[in-house]
């Protein structure tokens, strides 16, 4: 039972809450009896790896694409697969990345640039610099977050530039996530 707006979109009372949706689809928006609003099927993903390969060395003086995140705890909208998120609809998305990294001996003064790439291209405005002059033999993380406006079909990958041989990352301590915020 609900109000039909034009034959497709309905507003319906569901267990004391209101739900807005297209006919036959899952709820797009819920307004509950305490006034909370949420999107039960909002586009987004949270990805990691479900095995533990240990430390994985990165190619030196190169952008290393991180596409090993083979498992998701949330993936609605069908946008995430094999380390890449493709925007199902246009909008503003929040992205987050973190991974545990290590600088071996003899490379103090080297660094990494974790970065979100869009449509296969580096984003100069997204440059970060991690571990520069962290002493050799110590660890760090390369956590970053960004908000991007994407058109439908745009895709986002994670790249980490490693300036020296031997810099490694611990995949099991990594996460890549994104969510449509508006």
């Amino acid at each position, binding site marked *: 039972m609900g109000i039909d707006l034009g034959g497709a979109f309905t507003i319906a009372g569901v267990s004391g809450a209101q739900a807005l949706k297209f006919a036959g689809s899952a709820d797009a928006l819920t307004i*509950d*009896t305490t006034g909370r609003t949420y999107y039960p099927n909002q586009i987004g993903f*949270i990805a990691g*790896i479900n095995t533990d390969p240990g430390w994985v060395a990165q190619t030196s003086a190169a952008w290393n694409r991180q596409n090993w995140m083979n498992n998701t705890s949330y993936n609605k909208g069908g946008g995430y697969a094999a380390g890449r998120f493709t925007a199902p609809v246009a909008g503003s998305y929040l992205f987050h990345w973190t991974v545990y990294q290590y600088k071996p001996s003899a490379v103090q003064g080297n660094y990494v640039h974790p970065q979100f790439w869009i449509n296969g291209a580096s984003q100069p405005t997204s440059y970060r610099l991690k571990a520069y002059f962290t002493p050799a033999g110590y660890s760090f993380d390369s956590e970053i*977050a960004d908000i991007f406006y994407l058109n439908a079909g745009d895709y986002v990958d994670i790249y980490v530039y490693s300036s020296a041989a031997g810099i490694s990352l611990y995949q099991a301590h990594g*996460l890549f996530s994104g969510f449509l915020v508006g």
Partner: protein
Amino acid sequence: MGIDLAGTTLTSSAGLVATYSGSQIMKMGSTGVLQRYNPGQPMFRAGGSGTAAWVVFAAASTWDKVVFNATNVNVGSCYNTSNGRFTAPVTGVYLMVAHTYYHGNTAGWYTHPMFWVNGSSNARRPSAGAQHRMRGHGSASGYEEDTDSLEIISLIAGDYVEFYNYGGGGPNQWLPQYSRYEGYLLG
């Protein structure tokens, strides 16, 4: 004048306004802006009360739960200032953000800031391991770093989230009045 949907009222006022129990819960404005802010939306912002003062963690090389003892936003009392827990009031995807202003007390100190869910370091996550960050490693004793951490976490109603800092070396210390813990229901 509006449409009453079993308690939620839709009215037209420079856009479409949804109201529940007299409070605006959503507005689709005439300029095309969708405002979702409302008094009931799950959110909290916690920090340390009083005059700035360092607090030493109890022991060296242990997981230390960080308890922020004051809030200036705490919708529905979703955050508990006694035990440092945020409890998800509804199933959904949450944005969690936190940092401690952190001071290392011994040579070789470090900290792993991390969100724990239901008392576990990787519950509700897709990864085989916990989401270790690593801060301060390689800094000299007596120096400081923040532990700024962010995570998007899918939670089930009743799940609770706490902010932990593993204290490598130490015992290390933190400054509650320069630190914060926040959460918000994204969707």
